[in-house]
């Protein structure tokens, strides 16, 4: 066998070498973008987050949609865990390859809308009049005649409880009608009775071992819709109605915050952040394992509760001055870069309709259209047979008659505000600061960030 030497390559000059390197770098850098663009127009990408059950439910919904509209552009679901979701959307937008349609956190939605990254739905209202029949609070306007999105679905806060825990404690179930809602003290009393250490003692008994609690009465709502509702119930809030004044240091707000901290450190009926642990289990798991007996959470938690067959009931939230629930929800938006705007709007309307999808009957979503809250026949279309007793009073009646929209649905710059509020709330949770210290300390951080509220427009 003879060895054939390869022909000697032509020598590189330094410039040639750099050109070659630069060219290769350009190809390497542009490659992913080019390939992404080339395949971008053949289908519609729907991006979403959620629990494992939610993932299955959305996948089924999209599968059904593709079957029903078999001659049109196919829709691809793209699941992303909620913790990475915002980052992934940012990266996709930065790379000019956003999805066509998807879930969006409210702060990010307004940010993208302001940069013309989202489709202005107002332009489609004439062609698709169904866009106009939703509850007014579910629209996200970002300027005159500029409609960025709708809520994905309606969300409301509910007091969930494990019925077995109540039976074992010999307690009457919590009230389901807003007018007879528990006062805060009644709520605390029930939570004390439901909190049990390893020996079965509750915090009112001597020898209660707070470091070995088998069942907590509740989880302290240090944030989210639960806290929004309690604040509103006491006539308080993070910011004034016009979004220009900081109000969390009012006496009413401090009372609520201090009461919530007291659940952990004074009444010992709720786990501290350390006891709750990192990557804490979901509401359904906490209730199923009877680690916790009552939890304030959104109606979407019903999906997991129903799927995992937890013995649970629903009740209205405890009240201060007025009974109410906080409503709101993430946005469902269409990206302006989509090559199929009409098809995307059709999918948008499709998944919002309880007649088409079972995401409502399986407990994940509540409808956006008013008729599903007022008309008996329409209510029957989305309230599933396996829903807990009194769901109607707790969720539907309370939302319609006593619903208050979450403050951050309409407040400008909410993401920046949350970045200041969250760490401060953590020192409330860890017990490092009192409610008064936290609320007063936040004032100078929040005030410069207040920019008012987004406009509201009739349709």
């Amino acid at each position, binding site marked *: 066998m003879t060895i054939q030497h390869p022909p000697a390559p032509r020598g590189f000059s330094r410039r040639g070498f750099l050109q070659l*390197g630069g060219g290769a*770098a350009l190809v390497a850098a542009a490659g992913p973008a080019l390939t992404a663009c080339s395949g971008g127009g053949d289908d519609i990408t729907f991006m979403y987050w959620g629990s494992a059950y939610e993932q299955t439910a959305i996948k089924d919904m999209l599968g059904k949609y593709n079957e029903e509209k078999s001659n049109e552009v196919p829709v691809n679901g793209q699941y992303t865990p909620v913790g990475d979701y915002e980052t992934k959307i940012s*990266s996709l*937008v930065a790379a000019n390859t956003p999805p066509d349609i998807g879930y969006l956190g409210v702060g990010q939605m307004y*940010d993208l809308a302001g940069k013309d*990254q989202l489709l202005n739905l107002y332009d489609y209202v004439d062609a698709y009049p169904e866009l106009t029949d939703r509850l007014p609070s579910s629209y996200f306007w970002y300027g005159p005649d500029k409609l960025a999105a709708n809520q994905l679905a309606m969300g409301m806060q509910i007091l969930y409880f494990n019925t077995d825990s109540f039976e074992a404690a010999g307690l009457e179930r919590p009230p389901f009608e807003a007018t007879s809602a528990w006062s805060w003290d009644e709520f605390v009393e029930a939570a004390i009775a439901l909190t049990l250490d390893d020996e079965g003692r509750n915090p009112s008994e001597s020898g209660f071992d707070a470091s070995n609690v088998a069942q907590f009465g509740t989880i302290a709502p240090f944030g989210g819709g639960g806290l929004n509702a309690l604040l509103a119930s006491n006539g308080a809030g993070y910011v004034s109605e016009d979004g220009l004044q900081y109000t969390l240091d009012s006496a009413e707000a401090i009372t609520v915050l201090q009461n919530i901290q007291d659940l952990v450190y004074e009444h010992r009926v709720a786990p501290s952040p350390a006891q709750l642990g990192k990557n804490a289990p979901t509401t359904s798991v906490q209730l199923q394992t009877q680690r916790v007996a009552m939890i304030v959470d959104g109606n979407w938690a019903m999906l997991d509760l129903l799927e995992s067959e937890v013995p649970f009931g629903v009740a209205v939230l405890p009240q201060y001055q007025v009974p109410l629930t906080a409503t709101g929800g993430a946005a469902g938006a269409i990206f302006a870069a989509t090559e199929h705007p009409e098809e995307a709007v059709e999918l948008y309307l499709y998944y919002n309709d309880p007649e088409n999808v079972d995401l409502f009957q399986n407990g994940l979503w509540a409808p956006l259209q008013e008729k599903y809250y007022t008309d008996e026949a329409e209510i029957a279309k989305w309230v599933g047979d396996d829903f807990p007793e009194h769901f109607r009073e707790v969720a539907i009646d309370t939302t319609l008659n006593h619903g208050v929209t979450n403050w951050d649905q309409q407040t400008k710059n909410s*993401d920046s505000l949350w970045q200041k509020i969250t760490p401060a709330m953590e020192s409330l949770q860890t017990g490092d600061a009192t409610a008064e210290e936290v609320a007063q300390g936040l004032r100078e951080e929040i005030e410069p960030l207040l920019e008012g509220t987004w406009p509201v427009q009739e349709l």
Partner: protein
Amino acid sequence: MTATVDARPRTPSSPPTRGRSKAGRIEGRWGVMMALPAIIGFVAFTLAPMIASLFISLTDWTIGAAPQFVGVENYVRMFSADSSFFSSLWATVYYTLGAVPLSIIVAFVVALLLNANVRGQSVFRVIYYIPAIVPIVANSMLWIWLFNPDFGLLNSALARVGLPGSDWIFAEETAVPSLILMATWGFGNIAVIFLAGLQGVPRHLYEAISVDGGGAWSKFRHITLPMMTPVIFYSVVTGVIGALQVFVQAAVMTEGGPNDATLFFVYYLYRTAFTNNEMGYASALAWILFLIIMAITVLLFRNSNKWVYYEAGTGR
């Protein structure tokens, strides 16, 4: 740039460029060809993004909007109007000052023990090295459990010997020290390097001390320690560079909390870029960190000839 890179006339009779043989030239070209993938990789994925980020740091580019040139405004904002900048810098420095010395001391001590002639030496070496090969995210999940104040191993062990437990990563004061403790657990990497260094110390030097009547301490103080200074120096430099870029623990274990206690610089940078979408400002933060790391590294090198001993005697 002018086009005079290689303007010399080439004739068949002129001597080979740079005086190399034909075979040498061919070899050189092939060398470049073989190195090209790495060079392209460096240019495309390190150098070009660095240059791009330098330009981006001079703009107020937020994702989804067109970048606008703002000069050094981002850098001014950092030092004048951003409290998170200083608090994240402090958290990072605190972590570095704890994690680097502690890891080096523990690694050194363990390496000394491993270097002793004991039975099952290789088994011990493997055991101590294992933590270094556990992926950092898996490591973090493990430590979340260890740190759990209720049912974690650490508090259970403390309770067993009658000591009070701690809230570890769940309390403001103990969060960073907890992460330092966790970082120290990964000392195996440095220990192996120390071990290699220890085995390179000439035996005759120890014998000389013995002859002079010196004990174990003298051997350590006058032979081992000076001979190990290059390894210590290497560990300090790489350790500081690594610790200043600590990220995963904050992202996986604490999300920067509680109350921003573990908002490390790179995590803050990441949040600025991908949660706040402020690419311009995030790039400026990245450049400041780069400059800080570079300055510290230069200082360490400048300072090294005062305490690092090289056997060859050339300083460095």
